[in-house]
């Protein structure tokens, strides 16, 4: 246990990335906010914080899957907006909710196939998908409106035994991802493929008999499904469909993963690091709002933080 804990700070012997850094930052931020402000440690603000953090946390977990194989998904924001638009259509919840995930899975499948079969760079493939999906979303719902099935609203806004329901969304998403990433062959193969890419041995995973293409496609499908989950959550929060609600979410998701120690070259990263990265971003936004920092300054600070943290973990230090 202590060994595992140490690995979060010295990345030499671990493939989990420097997840200790965002953990320290998160703890420090929480302590500073709890003692420095009156409003932070209130029930209302904490509920609010959890609900604010959750869509980013879920989307970042999805992004982790593709970053691990050395990819990127820029269509995450559009998938989120698209999902809210679908949920705001007229129709029974029993149709709309499955439809969101089926369509998102399809988007991930197309992303993955374009990248592996047509050999298009992930940034271009998913950037194109971002535009295409944004266009479709605006056709479906040009401005925000419509209503979302009650069950979605209840699942986002309610609470159980004093615990806000959004927390369960995060637990379910993280639990699912943990099972897949650490408890399945698929997860291990993702690390293997990414490690090969990062070390300049793209063919290595294939010589082990791993179906590289299929695994990469599935990583993009997983990413899109998590994005859809984040979209469903947001729909329940804003109670309508909004073509712009997912704007720039893909970049925040990448930021959260990177702050959490995930290396964009592939093969190095962790679920808990990514979750911590999302928590750091949420705490930062919440704290600066409480301190009345202008949103423009907030954005600049976010960029600076990203640069500082990623600067701590150069590839060479990893020895990978």
């Amino acid at each position: 246990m202590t060994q595992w804990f140490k690995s979060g700070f010295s990345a030499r012997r671990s493939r989990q990335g420097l997840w200790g850094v965002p953990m320290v930052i998160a703890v420090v931020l929480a302590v500073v906010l709890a003692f420095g402000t009156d409003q932070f440690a209130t029930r209302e603000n904490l509920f609010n914080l959890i609900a604010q953090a959750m869509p980013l946390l879920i989307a970042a977990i999805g992004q982790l899957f593709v970053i691990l194989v050395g990819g990127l998904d820029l269509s995450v924001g559009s998938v989120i907006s698209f999902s809210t638009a679908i949920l705001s259509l007229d129709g029974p919840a029993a149709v709309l909710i499955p439809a969101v995930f089926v369509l998102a899975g399809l988007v991930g499948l197309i992303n993955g196939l374009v990248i592996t079969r047509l050999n298009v760079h992930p940034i271009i493939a998913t950037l194109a998908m971002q535009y295409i999906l944004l266009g479709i979303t605006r056709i479906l719902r040009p401005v925000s409106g419509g209503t979302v099935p009650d069950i979605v609203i209840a699942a986002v806004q309610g609470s159980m035994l004093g615990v806000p329901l959004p927390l369960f969304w995060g637990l379910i998403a993280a639990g699912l991802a943990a099972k897949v990433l650490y408890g399945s062959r698929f997860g291990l193969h993702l690390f293997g493929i990414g490690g090969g890419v990062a070390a300049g041995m793209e063919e290595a995973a294939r010589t082990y008999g791993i179906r590289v293409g299929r695994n990469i496609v599935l990583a993009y499908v997983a990413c899109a499904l998590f994005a859809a989950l984040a979209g469903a959550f947001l729909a329940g929060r804003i109670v309508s469909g909004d073509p712009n609600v997912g704007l720039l979410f893909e970049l925040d998701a990448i930021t959260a993963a990177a702050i959490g120690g995930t290396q964009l070259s592939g093969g190095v990263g962790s679920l808990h690091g990514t979750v911590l990265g999302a928590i750091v971003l949420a705490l930062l936004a919440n704290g600066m709002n409480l301190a009345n920092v202008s949103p423009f300054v907030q954005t600049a600070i976010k960029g600076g933080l990203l640069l500082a943290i990623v600067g701590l973990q150069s590839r060479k230090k990893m020895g990978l």
Partner: protein
Amino acid sequence: MFDGETACLIEMQSISKAFGSSRVLRDVTLRLRPGSVHALMGENGAGKSTLMKILAGVHRSDEGRILKDGNPLHLPSPREALAAGISTVFQELSLLPNLTIAENMFLGREPLLRGGGLDRKRMRAETVAALAELDLRLDPDQLVSTLTIAERQFVEIAHGIKADASVLILDEPTAALNAADVEVLNRSIRRLRAEGRAIVYISHRMDEIFSICDEVTVLKDGQYVGTRAIRDVTPDGLIAMMVGRELSDLFPARAASLGKPVLELSGFRTTPKARAFDLTLHQGEILGLAGLEGQGQQRIMRALIGRHTPAGGTLRLHGQALKFPSAARGIRAMARLGLGFVPEDRKEEGLMLGLSVAANLVIGLHAEKPAFTPARSLKAVVQRMTDALHIKTASPTTPVASLSGGNQQKVLLGRYLAREVKVLVIEEPTRGVDIGAKSEIYGLLRDFAQAGGAVLVTSRETVELIGLCDRLAVVHGDTVMTELPANQATEHSILAAALTVEGGAA
């Protein structure tokens, strides 16, 4: 299927393969018997690795077929080869650095628990057992990136030795191993042979071939030369099969006469503690820095291009006194003065592996021009150098990484020859180069000297220095102990020259 002895386990018939326009295998046959170790020999670039990659499912052959127990095999990818019981330890290390030893051992065939999760307990236990067979005690949860090269090599071998594999391909498994490690490996190979498996063993080390193998198949230039029982051949006979000529032809004739001095070092002190020495390189001469490994040969050479700062001395090039170059612009400045430097590690320091043969050849010419001068393709130069150096490449646009070691080295030489330098400073001119290409490189260096150039060279292979050079400067303790005419030097006299004086001083 019987041909006097045992039936073949694997038969590769009339295999041909081309990459682009270069044909790497032509009508090659290989027959592997169960319970035997089969050596596959040939120079670098003879097609050994390609043949094995076809058997491992990495490449697909253009023609020919593969039979296992008489039944045709279809191997579109490594998956099918693994399923057919063909397991490979590749020459280039292919372990994934970010996975643990156990994960690497089981990658692609992980044992599962009933719930679908990974059976990590079993992976660990079987990894420990497999490593123990090779006398290795390593934590199975250690990341491969934390292992030494030799440890990685063993893990790679352990990974290849799978219980269900009937064919094991070992492509230069001993490259990173010392003698004791090799003995451990040989013991495992004998055990596998006794179990009735067929083993392909690729190595350049003759002693290994003769100690462990039963049969040998020789390839040359992608063609089948022959298969012999090891007891029927000698090392010299094998080399003759591989090279197709006698060893004495390896080195070109020495210089008939020398010209005036081109490079003069006087009062040169490599380090503050080292004794000062003088050294002169003449036109038409190949001068070797000999001696034990790491005695300062490299520092002396690198002082000439600013990669080492000497403690004192003067430098004259073509009679003109120069300051010792600085680290920042030494290589460019000296190249402008007609001195080219070919580093030992061509992959790290010399070539741009991802760039084409053409770009690597002419980059030196471009480097002479201001940065924003349009870079012409210099097709004529590329063609001239490719022809003159006999560089074997599919086309000038082929990435240099895909060439064999000897051809890569020729490209690096060509870069300086294209600039028409007058002095070549070369570290390890034939490292990782096969015999045929070595001979060609010696010829190229001699031609260069004869055309009025001068060469300063170091090598770990003393035999190479004796055969190639006109004169040897024996370096020990960062200083030149003595100079010997190369045609009178022996490995013994060089060692004696290096050590006796030091012994007297101490």
